[in-house]
């Protein structure tokens, strides 16, 4: 089942069938205020604690003002899933999210290397990797972000798009945002 789902997503020849609930979190990074409520919400949901570094969505601020959320883009080709040597990663049929089987994961870091944005990261204290699981279709980060009216994160239905463009490294994203925000002046902060 998982394999067929993956295949259908890779089909670029026109409209194709996805599960109705399959979603994607659209992201307008330059609107991010850096409030980190998404980190609070994510870690409270998954870890039952306020734990910024164990959040699956993390706000980076490598240059002040250029704050942005860094989290899984659910690339249409899922290179992390392919890279896992122990098959600890799978794709949720329902939501399209990458699911981590904690017991199987050896925290080898192969998925991190495979991700074009180096998005996955290890759990700070446990031997497993952390990847956004879309909260089973109700992402808590989107909820707090919309309540706040920032609308950096918006839930949309998953379509045939080049989602992997959003898997970029923090440095890469920072470079773009700093350029957008400060123009040529931005160069001196990088």
């Amino acid at each position: 089942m998982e394999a067929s789902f993956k295949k259908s997503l890779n089909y670029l020849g026109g409209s194709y069938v996805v599960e109705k609930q399959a979603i994607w979190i659209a992201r307008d990074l330059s609107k991010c205020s850096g409030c980190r409520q998404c980190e609070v919400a994510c870690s409270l949901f998954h870890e039952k604690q306020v734990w910024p570094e164990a959040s699956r969505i993390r706000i980076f601020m490598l240059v002040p003002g250029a704050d942005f959320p860094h989290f899984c883009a659910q690339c249409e080709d899922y290179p992390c899933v392919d890279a896992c040597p122990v098959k600890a990663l799978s794709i949720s049929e329902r939501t399209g999210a990458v699911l981590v089987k904690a017991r199987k994961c050896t925290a080898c870091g192969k998925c991190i290397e495979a991700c074009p944005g180096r998005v996955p990261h290890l759990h700070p204290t446990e031997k497993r990797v952390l990847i956004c699981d879309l909260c089973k279709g109700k992402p808590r980060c989107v909820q707090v972000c919309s309540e706040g009216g920032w609308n950096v994160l918006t839930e949309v239905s998953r379509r045939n798009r080049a989602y992997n463009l959003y898997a970029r490294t923090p440095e890469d994203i920072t470079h773009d945002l700093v350029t957008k925000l400060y123009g040529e002046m931005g160069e001196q902060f990088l």
Partner: protein
Amino acid sequence: MICGYAGKFLEVDLSKERTRETVLEDDVLRDYIGGRGLASKILWDRLGSKWESLNPLNPRNLLLFLTGPLTGYFPGGRTCVSGKSPQSNGVVGSTVGGEFGVELRCAGWDGIIFTGEARKPSYLFVIDSNIEIVDADHIWGKDAKQTLRVLTKECRRHLTEKFPKYGEMKEPSVLYIGPAGENKVRTAVVAAKWTHAAGYGGYGALMGAKKLKAIVVKGTGPLPEVANLRRMRRLIKAVYKNAYDSELWRRWGTGAAGYEVGAKTSSEPVHNWQDEWHNRRSFGVDKFENRVWIKQSWSDFGCPTCCLKISMVKTGKFKGAITDNPDYELQAYLGPNLGIFTPEDNVYLTSLIDDLGLCGIQTGNVLGFASELFQRGILSAEDLGGLRLAWGNTEAFAALAERIARREGIGDLLAEGTYRAALQIERMKNVEVLEYAVQSKGISIGAHGIRSGKDYPDIISYACSVQGGDHTSTAAFPINDPGSELWEIFNDSAVYCNFNSFGLRRKIRFDFYEAATGVELTPEEWCSTKALRILQLQRAMLLLGGPDLKWNPETDDDNPARFYEPLPSGPYKGKVLRRARVDKTKRKYYKAAGWDKNGIPKPRILRKLGLQDVDKALDKIRQATD
């Protein structure tokens, strides 16, 4: 152990390059909470016996970075910086916004206590329990933006080397000083990001004296566990909701005040407080919003309000200057206070002040003071190293700010802050100038005047505050009024951003405290015991003062002379403070605080609060004033 705390403090002796862990007793945490309260306790216990002879810039002084049980939970993270203040010679709980306090707690520490002085420029790098004192030669002398750039880059690289398999780790949080702090300028700040600052107290100078350029912290753990998480989540939601209902506060932050506090409440410094009214439409919030705000919402940890905005000058001679809003205080002090009424000039000066690591309030105050002396012919262009310091001459003010930060020429004198500079100029020129120094006990008055009676401070707010001119810590009568210093001590001790409590029921902060710690605390108990105890400690250390200055309550528990001059224009023209009213309220306040007629805490209240040693130490001042 009480919930809500990491449970330990990091002590760093910079002279011996040694670090150790300290655990404080539950009773101490229960009574003094954290931040400002705990700073007062630690400073008194360790330095009280030699307080009067201790130069604040001496290596023996302590430099404290403390969090509280609400840091990271109450939306809007802050950190409290303290020590013996190079400005008031007392204790100031000076807080700065940003992620530092949250990161520190996630690293397993409730605070850092520095003693001694590093042999050479250094910074402290904390990664959880891993502590390192690192050479800072390469960033010594660098401005705010460059300091942060280099540190973020090099510390991130270090983290990657240390945790090669982890993946990308979020950047660590940094507190640092600029050139002004390095040069021990008394109006230097401890800064975060580019624009956030702990300004009151002058702890940038103390950090510079310790040759400590920065503290970098990475915490990978969770925030300390709270007693009642479900209740905490409900409380956090209530704060969010309240903020979201307040549209203009969210949209403008304090940025509307640069116009409104002048035009509406007539309590904004104009020309070094010679006036408090202006209605210059060029300084309206819409001008800032439409011309210079390039990012409308910028916030610190957990904050739903986003009172910060990012500004950038797009045209003209100051093109490329970047800062935050500026917030109201810096709009006022680096705007109308200096005869400046355009966003571009205001953003440029604020950006420069940030870069130099200066306090915008207190440097704006000293610049205004110097400009008034220029206006009156007391300081000539020659005295000022060729600068014609006329009102509105932005470039001259900028040049003078640079000289202050580098202690060049007249800048060396003005780097002592308004009060000390005034004393020196009086000796130098043989003219009285203290009447133009708008400050209280060495600390500049925040940008909220009291003559019109339409702004929040009270007629004794600055005169009787244990933190002098600090507009975030203002005395009021009745003493347990929610707008009084006793309540503000809670903000600075539990360490969170008070802005997010505006519009909520006042008691909510105590609900947060209970949810975090599991310790019951009512406002009544707080005001009549714990806050009062902290107040007495701060008062005692302020009065003991020394070694260069001491305060005499009879003359120094007063408003700046300027506030007894009538307002010269605007809707409240002619309004003035009446000395008799101030004195009457002051006497009532003394009584309510348990102070004698000379403003010294009485033995009875001190003994009741368990401060026998403070009582003994104050005997010598009592004898001197009798």
